[in-house]
């Protein structure tokens, strides 16, 4: 088992997992926030656009998005995101992970807004705050605190879902595991190395987000 660790660069593979997760988390946060703004906007058509985005990406398997990104978008439609095959697969994985999790980020932010009782906004208006002021001083701080727990779940899910990129040949943790398990004996040990790797990545994050959401919870 130890010789496997010396012959394969497991840490490098987990590094790629982290890079994938980091870039996709930023992408998902940006796109998800935009979609949440659309869904919460007063214009009916923008709400519909936001809802359509969420329905499409929450209900489509990430695997299908990944497979389609290479076999469909790259080969057939000729949309290349990188100079060579490796770069192209990596950046398509980032794009698809971002889009897929953006739908969940949007729902997390929206559920944060939904935890606010209507009375809060009514009180803000009745003491004469403008729209911008009530948003800045009353609504958004509460919405953000209410969204921490679901955002944490989304981030953890994203880290685990980076493994799906292995299907299109990105050499992150799951990709390396598939290679090792193919070539070496002792699959149980290999499984535990990678499984424990993901436990280390996600479990402390879960504990931290739970702490944070409890500490910042709005007492009502």
């Amino acid at each position: 088992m130890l010789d496997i660790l010396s012959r394969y660069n497991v840490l490098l593979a987990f590094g790629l997992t982290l890079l994938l997760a980091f870039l996709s988390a930023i992408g998902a946060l940006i796109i998800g926030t935009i979609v949440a703004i659309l869904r919460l906007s007063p214009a009916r058509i923008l709400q519909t656009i936001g809802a359509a985005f969420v329905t499409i990406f929450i209900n489509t398997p990430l695997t299908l998005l990944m497979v389609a990104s290479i076999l469909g978008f790259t080969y057939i439609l000729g949309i290349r995101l990188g100079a060579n095959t490796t770069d192209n697969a990596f950046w398509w994985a980032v794009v698809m992970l971002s889009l897929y999790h953006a739908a969940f980020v949007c729902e997390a932010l929206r559920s944060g807004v939904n935890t606010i009782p209507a009375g809060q906004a009514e009180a803000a208006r009745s003491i004469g705050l403008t729209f911008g002021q009530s948003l800045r001083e009353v609504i958004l701080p509460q919405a953000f605190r209410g969204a921490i727990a679901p955002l944490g779940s989304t981030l953890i899910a994203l880290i685990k879902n980076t493994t799906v990129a292995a299907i299109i040949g990105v050499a992150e943790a799951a990709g390396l595991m598939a290679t090792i398990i193919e070539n070496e004996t002792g699959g149980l040990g290999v499984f535990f190395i990678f499984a424990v790797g993901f436990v280390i990545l996600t479990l402390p994050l879960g504990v931290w987000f739970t702490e944070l959401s409890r500490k910042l919870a709005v007492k009502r």
Partner: protein
Amino acid sequence: MSSPVVLFDYPGPKALRTNRILTVVGILGVLAVLALVAKKMGDASQLDPAMWLVFLNPEAWTAYLIPGLIGTLMATVFSVFLAGIFGVLFGAGRLSHSAWVRRPSGVVVEFFRAVPVLIMMYFFKYLLVWGGWFDSAFNPLIAVTLALTLYNGSVIAELVRSGVHALPKGQHEAGLSLGLTQGQTLRLIQLPQSLVAMLPALIAQLVVVLKDSALGVAITYQDLVFWSKTLGSAYANTVPAYIVAAALFIALNYAVTKLADWVEQRLRRTQHVAGPITNAEPNVIQGTGEPGDSATNALDDVLEHLGHDEPESRG
């Protein structure tokens, strides 16, 4: 949905004008995106009628899409059934009053929730090939089912646990005062109610299983994604094949979500259980402490905030 009321007042003349501008901008934006997609697809001749007429040909369905749907549904049904059993067993285990049952159950549940499903699928595929216990044709299905069972079973275990925690304390106390043991109280009073209260969330979990079963393509399981890939190369209509497969997945999952909403509404009306009914997605973050200490449960906090009668609206 309460959000528009929270965020905006009833629109006056100025707000109505802004809304109209936003509406026009939104329509133009969507049209621009659609035009771009259409142009890209047109350039690659993926919009040719022949590419799409394939789906009117019964063979496309009988030889590709229906076997794909059967593959996806088969893995889903087996996994959900087994995950339900796993979830109730380990959920009850985490609620046990004996630390010898509680701790190991907790470790198992937290472990399988933290490990990506794909990693488990690779491992079980390897294990089954190594062991050679089954006909090799069944190995992918068994590996997919095992991986999905362990992950989703752990999520269901957490749902069961938070469902029991969400019941009023009086239920447990009433059971004990009737002379039931701790185990009997859990089995006869708390679990049945928590399962009913969690039914909408359990149904919503089906969406996750349906989507994750597609991971099976990585270990050559023949599900809808696999067969849409084959369909795409057989008729040389790759992009339309994926679009149709995605549409099938979206329709299936949308129907399941609606069913969960309907069950939730119905349970709320009939009020057979003492606790809150929810189809909130399993919002229990990992590593949330020991049972019995209800303050450490994320879902309890969320439910408390929502108030017991406020439905969690979802997409």
